[in-house]
């Protein structure tokens, strides 16, 4: 009852029973079934109770709750969409689409299903809306990318289809095993930093913001991780029977790079118009080389 009074559920037209049911759903989702009651209560106390009550009241179709929701979040939602898409018309379209989902257009057993019913109050409602918008944007973007027509590709300058995927070349299995072993020894945060920087090309500032640390910390961590990884992999390769020099060569020269280059070189030569032209260019090439 104390939690209900803190949630202002009555103001939004949410009954204590409905609120109690909501809390039980949330606890069931995130806590084990045999969780002690005191821990369950502590978990509930950490929730954004007022925003949870508002969202559930909106999902239940309470007009007063919708008034409050629109007053608080309408403009913010368009701002967030603008920030995510960086294009006004797309932002409006995205926000309108989410509004439809929040209001609930799909029916289940004759009942309107609102996306707000899935909000559990673990983070702020504004943050949740931002995440849901971002998720919708990512999904739409991918869908649209898959549906790009050949004409559009041509207009964009993508006139040639991508080369067929490179054949999987089996490298020395000892290298893969050593690398996998070294990576598995890292904690999740370290692997996240590596993946964000080396795979996603995120900036130091972006990674630092995600982990709530200073970007110089990330810079130092990356340097340290790269050096430690190299050392650990080299040690792993030597354990697997390689000499020091062999291990270093295996790590420095990636066989697959050679394969790609040879393949590319072969393709270039195949596309060369005629032997006579190549022969005519040869002296110039030799002169420059």
């Amino acid at each position, binding site marked *: 009852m104390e939690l209900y009074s803190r949630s202002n559920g009555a103001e939004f037209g949410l009954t204590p029973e409905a609120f109690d049911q909501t809390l039980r759903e949330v606890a069931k989702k995130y806590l084990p079934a045999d969780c002690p009651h005191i821990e369950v209560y502590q978990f509930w106390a950490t929730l954004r109770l007022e925003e949870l009550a508002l969202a559930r009241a909106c999902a239940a179709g309470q007009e007063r709750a919708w008034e409050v929701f629109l007053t608080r979040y309408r403009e913010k939602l368009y701002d967030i969409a603008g920030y995510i898409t960086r294009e006004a018309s797309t932002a409006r379209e995205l926000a309108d689409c989410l509004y439809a989902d929040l209001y609930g257009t799909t029916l289940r057993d004759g009942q309107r299903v609102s996306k707000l019913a899935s909000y559990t109050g673990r983070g702020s409602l504004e943050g949740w809306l931002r995440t*849901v918008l971002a998720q919708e944007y990512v999904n739409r973007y991918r869908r649209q990318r898959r549906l790009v027509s050949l004409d559009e590709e041509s207009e964009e300058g993508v006139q040639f289809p991508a080369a067929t995927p490179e054949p999987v070349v089996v490298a020395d299995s000892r290298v893969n095993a050593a690398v996998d072993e070294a990576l598995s020894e890292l904690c*999740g945060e370290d692997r996240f930093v*590596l993946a964000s920087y080396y795979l996603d090309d995120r900036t130091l500032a972006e990674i630092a913001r995600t982990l709530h640390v200073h970007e110089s910390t990330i810079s130092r961590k990356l340097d340290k991780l790269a050096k430690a990884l*190299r050392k650990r992999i080299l040690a792993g390769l030597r354990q697997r029977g390689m000499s020091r020099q062999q291990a270093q060569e295996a790590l420095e020269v990636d066989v697959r790079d050679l394969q790609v280059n040879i393949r590319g070189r072969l393709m270039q030569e195949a596309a060369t118009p005629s032997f006579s032209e190549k022969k005519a260019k040869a002296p110039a090439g030799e002169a420059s080389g």
Partner: protein
Amino acid sequence: MTELPKVVVQRLQTATNAVHPDPDVITSFVEKSLGERERDQVLGHLAECRNCRELVALSFPRHEAALPAAASVRPAWLAWPVLRWGALAACVVVVGAAVTLHRQFRASVPSGLSAGRSDTPRVAQERVQTALRSDTSAVEKAKPSFLQPSEAKQDLDSLAKKVVSADKESPKRMVAAAKTAKPPVPVPGLRDQSRSIPAQTEAVEADSTAARVNPSSTAMDEFVPGRAKDAPPPSAPEAAMAAGAPMPAKPAVAMAQSALVANKRALATLVGLPPRWTLSADGTLQRSFDSGRTWETVSVAGQASFRALAADGLEIWVGGPKGALYHSSDAGQHWTQVQPTANGEVLSGDIIGVEFTDRLHGTVTTSGQGKWITADSGQSWEKP
């Protein structure tokens, strides 16, 4: 940055089949409200799932919003437009005066110093009396007059222009410009500013360097840098004394230089930009006045290690192990230890999160998932 071998990068690209965290968990991760165990789980998933990494990156609020709301929480006096412009003009005057004085000093050190040092106090007194006799009207002008703020602004603006343009003028023209300037303008608000912000005090005083050049200085043979700076407050006889009294130029230049150094900090404060704050990897509190280019370590009551930081304008909160919670309401100049208590219970756990939505309302989170809430800037606490 150290390059990773390509084979390592490729092995990092392992796809995951694990269940993706729902938007609530992602939001909690972004807002740093997940427990340690859950956070590690999410990070482990993010390390393997490119889609979720992209989602997290998009889910962060824009950078400006994440920063402390500097513009919204400003000292009340700075909200007064006239004073705001006045303060800006004062800064311009400080910079201009310091540069001018420095150049003038370099140009006229031999004659100026020899003349100044050869004067005995008696000679100086005679020169004062001569000045008083010869230009009583100017002395009259030197009496303090309280201007309206708008006049004060115009006066500061005109002074700023003159001082800056004097950079290109000869010393005599500089003296002439100083003569035509109005006597010092005691603007109450400006004085209040100098009291409220220590770093700014130097800037305002350096500003007076230009403002205190005495109109009755017809007796001046040459312009001696720093003389006006060291002049006493602007009463007529004292101002006349300042015109003739020999003053060592070196301390004045040193003070002008120190004013320049302090000016960087004062400028940041005057335009409403509070310093940027961060915690280093070892938990040391650091502050930057130049948008993060350089950082200086801030000592907080001998406490070395902190884990949480909240900055809102000039209000700073830092929290660390064993309930160490400190608050500064003057951008880190002074610190007060805060000991939250609620219902007889004292916060003694490790503080892992401090969040303040405004100057009054904030939440402190401990490692045991305990939350302490205040609605009066830490005067009283509530434990939900």
